[in-house]
């Protein structure tokens, strides 16, 4: 790491042969970042030496590389925005940004990119900011390996960790985000990849996605967020290899889907969530190869969801496997493994010979009448469920897995 | 010694004791007689606090029965049918009761040998014959040397030998100054043992007086006939 950093610095320093180099630090001519930015020309590199710089309202309006050496701290002292970038080709690296101002009128960020393309924000720390990184109307920005932590207490007094608005081709990877309202927030964003991030202990959603088509997120971990992950009003979203875990509590979801079309949810882990996967008005989603384990409800699928396919998933030790709010079913469940399945496989083809009904009567009742949950695991309820599983009267008769797997999918 | 005044007891709609008055003198053997269902056992159970009476007063010595249970330490009771926890042995029952009653029994050993029960003591009670159990019952009643003995049909089920052993014991107790209350259907037995008779009829005392007086009054040759005459 140190070697890389040194090489990097040497490279940049040598590039200073044809581009200008500005040094900022207590022992240098320029003692504030503002002065350094002020004197820099387009294409320059500004080095900021270790120390704490209490500054805010910094602006970059031309191409620039801003490097923090040994993690200098820029402390916005909770007044306004710390750094606003309005030019293309800006790199920001190696800082600790702290204390962007809380405001009910302005979405003050530690670092904001406004119509700034081809930029990069990497290896920074963000502490106790209102919004940490705010990218607006920008393209080709790389946000990587930042550590973002907030001290959010209430939703109305906190901003998002990484906030994207009308962006395209943004790559968010290797960041860890906690203590904000939403860990990562995307609205009107296209062709983004969100990968290998860890979003945890945010007040609302670990990841929040709205009106954003053709995006992909994979290999992320979302855990212990107030309400899990929400993906809404979007098409062609590819979600794979993520972990949704421990979103446990009132109105908490592993993954909440609303109005999502033509998307894939594959090879994810849903563990210990109140609701693993919630789907409302979603069409043509392929849900495949996921693991649902120890959730309250593994999947809640509302009747306005159609043509979704659930296949080769594992359902293990969930309180309820599938819940729905209607007798109608327009989705396909096939070849999943259900640990509740008690059928047999006489022809030894690995597929159970009798279908599995994953919707319990009781889950349907609680869907209609929440207080009925207090009767969970009561003997009366068990008897009722048993009777219903033989003669379905109220549960959707067509919501069955006709080919349940006998063995767990690995 | 024992003073009963206006004693009332009903079981549901059935009035068993109707304002019964009676006195039992110290150092006597008093027999309570009457036909089946006349209230003999109920009266005894009221004395013991086993049945809760509905009205009237009972005084034993100077103590007025009111729910306090201490007075029972002066009473030894032998119920009509001996009923014991079935899994225990006779010696365990005796140990248990000695354990529960403050001041342990000094007489148990003596009584066991007196009633020839030494070999039966370690057997579970459920394996013992009715008569043997009745003897254990007698030991339980007698072993604390109580001032008052209440014996409900004491000789029922006993063989002649044991029966006379028990009767001798009762006489001996009286001789040592005890007050004994006894019920029995066997009039000859009462004639043999009792000084006084309380004749219960319809929940009241029909006759109360010395046995010989009753016989003399009726001019019959024994108690059985005397009572038969009195009833006719």
């Amino acid at each position, binding site marked *: 790491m140190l070697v890389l950093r040194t090489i990097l610095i040497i490279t940049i320093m040598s590039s200073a042969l044809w581009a200008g180099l500005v040094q900022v630090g207590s022992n240098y001519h320029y003692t504030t970042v503002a002065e350094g930015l002020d004197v820099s020309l387009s294409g320059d590199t500004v080095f900021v030496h270790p120390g704490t710089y209490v500054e805010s309202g910094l602006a970059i309006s031309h191409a620039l590389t801003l490097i923090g050496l040994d993690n200098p701290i820029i402390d916005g002292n909770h007044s306004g925005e710390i750094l606003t970038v309005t030019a293309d080709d800006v790199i920001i690296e190696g800082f600790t940004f702290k204390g962007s101002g809380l405001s009910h009128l302005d979405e003050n960020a530690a670092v904001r990119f406004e119509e700034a393309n081809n930029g990069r924000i990497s290896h920074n720390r963000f502490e106790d900011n209102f919004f940490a990184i705010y990218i607006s109307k920008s393209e080709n920005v790389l946000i990587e390996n930042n550590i973002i932590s907030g001290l959010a207490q209430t939703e109305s007094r906190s901003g998002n960790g990484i906030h994207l608005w009308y962006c395209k081709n943004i790559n968010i990877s290797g960041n860890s985000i906690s203590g904000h309202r939403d860990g990562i927030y995307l609205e009107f964003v296209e062709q983004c990849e969100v990968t290998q991030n860890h979003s945890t202990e945010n007040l609302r959603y670990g990841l929040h996605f709205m009106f954003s088509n053709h995006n992909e997120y994979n290999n992320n971990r979302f855990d212990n967020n107030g309400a899990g992950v929400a993906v809404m009003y979007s098409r062609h979203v590819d979600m794979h290899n993520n972990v949704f875990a421990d979103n*446990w*509590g*009132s*109105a*908490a979801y592993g993954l909440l889907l609303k109005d999502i079309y033509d998307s894939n949810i594959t090879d994810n882990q849903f563990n210990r969530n*109140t*609701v693993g996967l919630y789907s409302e008005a979603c069409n043509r989603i392929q849900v495949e190869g996921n693991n649902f384990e120890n959730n*309250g*409800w593994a999947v809640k699928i509302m009747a306005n969801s159609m043509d979704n396919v659930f296949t080769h998933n594992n359902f293990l*030790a969930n*309180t309820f496997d599938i819940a729905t709010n209607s007798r109608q079913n327009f989705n396909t469940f096939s070849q999943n493994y259900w640990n509740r399945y008690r059928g047999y496989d006489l022809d030894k083809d690995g597929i159970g010979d009798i279908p599995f009904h994953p919707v319990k009567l009781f889950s349907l*009742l609680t869907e*209609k*009448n*929440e*207080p*009925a*949950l*207090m*009767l*969970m*695991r*009561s*003997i*009366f*309820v*068990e*008897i009722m469920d048993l009777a219903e599983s033989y003669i379905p009267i109220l549960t959707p008769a067509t919501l069955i897995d006709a080919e349940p797997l006998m063995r767990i999918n690995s | 010694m024992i003073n009963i005044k206006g004693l009332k007891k009903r*079981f549901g709609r059935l009035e068993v004791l109707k304002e019964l008055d009676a006195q039992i003198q110290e150092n006597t053997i008093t027999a309570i007689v009457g036909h089946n269902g006349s209230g003999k056992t109920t009266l005894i*159970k009221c004395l*013991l*606090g*086993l*049945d*809760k009476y509905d009205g009237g007063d009972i005084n034993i010595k100077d103590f007025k029965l009111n*729910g306090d*249970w*201490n*007075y*029972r*330490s002066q*009473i030894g*009771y032998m*119920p009509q049918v001996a*009923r*014991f*926890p*079935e*899994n*225990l042995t006779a010696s*365990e*029952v005796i140990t*248990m*009761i000695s*354990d*529960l*009653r*403050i001041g342990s029994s000094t007489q148990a050993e003596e009584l066991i040998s007196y009633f020839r029960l030494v070999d039966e003591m370690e057997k579970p009670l459920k394996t013992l014959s009715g008569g043997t159990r009745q003897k254990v019952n007698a030991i*339980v009643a007698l072993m604390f040397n109580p001032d008052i003995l209440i014996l409900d049909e004491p000789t029922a089920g006993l063989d002649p030998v044991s029966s006379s052993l028990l009767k001798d014991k009762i006489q001996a107790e009286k001789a040592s100054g005890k007050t004994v209350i006894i019920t029995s259907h066997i009039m000859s037995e009462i004639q043999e043992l009792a000084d006084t008779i309380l004749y219960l009829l319809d929940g009241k005392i029909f006759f109360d007086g010395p046995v010989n007086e009753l016989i003399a009054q009726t001019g019959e040759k024994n108690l059985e006939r005397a009572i038969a005459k009195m009833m006719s």
Partner: protein
Amino acid sequence: MMTLLKIIKYQLHDLLRGKWFIIYTAVFFLLTDGLFRFGGDPGQVSLSLMNVVLFIIPLVSIVFGTMFFYNSREFMELLLSQPISRISLYLGLYLGLALPLSAVYLIGVGVPFMYHAGIQTGSYWILLLVGVSLTWVFTALAFLIAVMSEQRVKGVGMTIVLWLFFAILYDGIILFILFALEDYPLEKLTLILSLFNPIDLGRILMLLQFDIAALMGYTGALFSKFYGNMFGSAVAVFALWTWCAIPVWLGYRAFSKKDF
């Protein structure tokens, strides 16, 4: 007090000779041990045992308790002619049954837990607490019924009806009410209704250790807010023990007036 302890001692002595206790211990022991051997983790074992505890303990306690009371008739008669107070005798009989029944449960479940999983926290202790509480509650109810009803067949019949009511019917009635009055806010009502069934109280206490806390919280329900904290659990435990104290008290009152 001494008398009470002595009565308990003789009760134990008498009871422990019966085969009942060995069978009862063995059932819990084999079940718990078996659940562990078939690959359950302590949480899953607790969850599986929960249904057994809620089903078997009330049934055994109430039926066995009533029969025990009837069979102790001789013992009562023998002791009541002795200088012993009725309260000592009644409590002695009650404790003399409730203590060994709960001890047997603790051993049957606790020992396999110890050697399979060590000392556990949370759900394990609640499982033990609920099992013991239900034993005490239903033994108290058993005694109350037995004191009130002289006839054995009637008494045992009543215990089974009462058990069916609490174990099964009551929840059916709640469900019916919840749906019949669907349009009204029912949370307070369900909260109150849950206090009036000891089996439901036990079930809720245990569910709070497992999944219901989060499930109930789904709508931020009053129910979970109430039961989801220490105060709510304390109220549930208190209500459960009230379910024990009131029948014991009523039973004693009837016992003190009873003719033998």
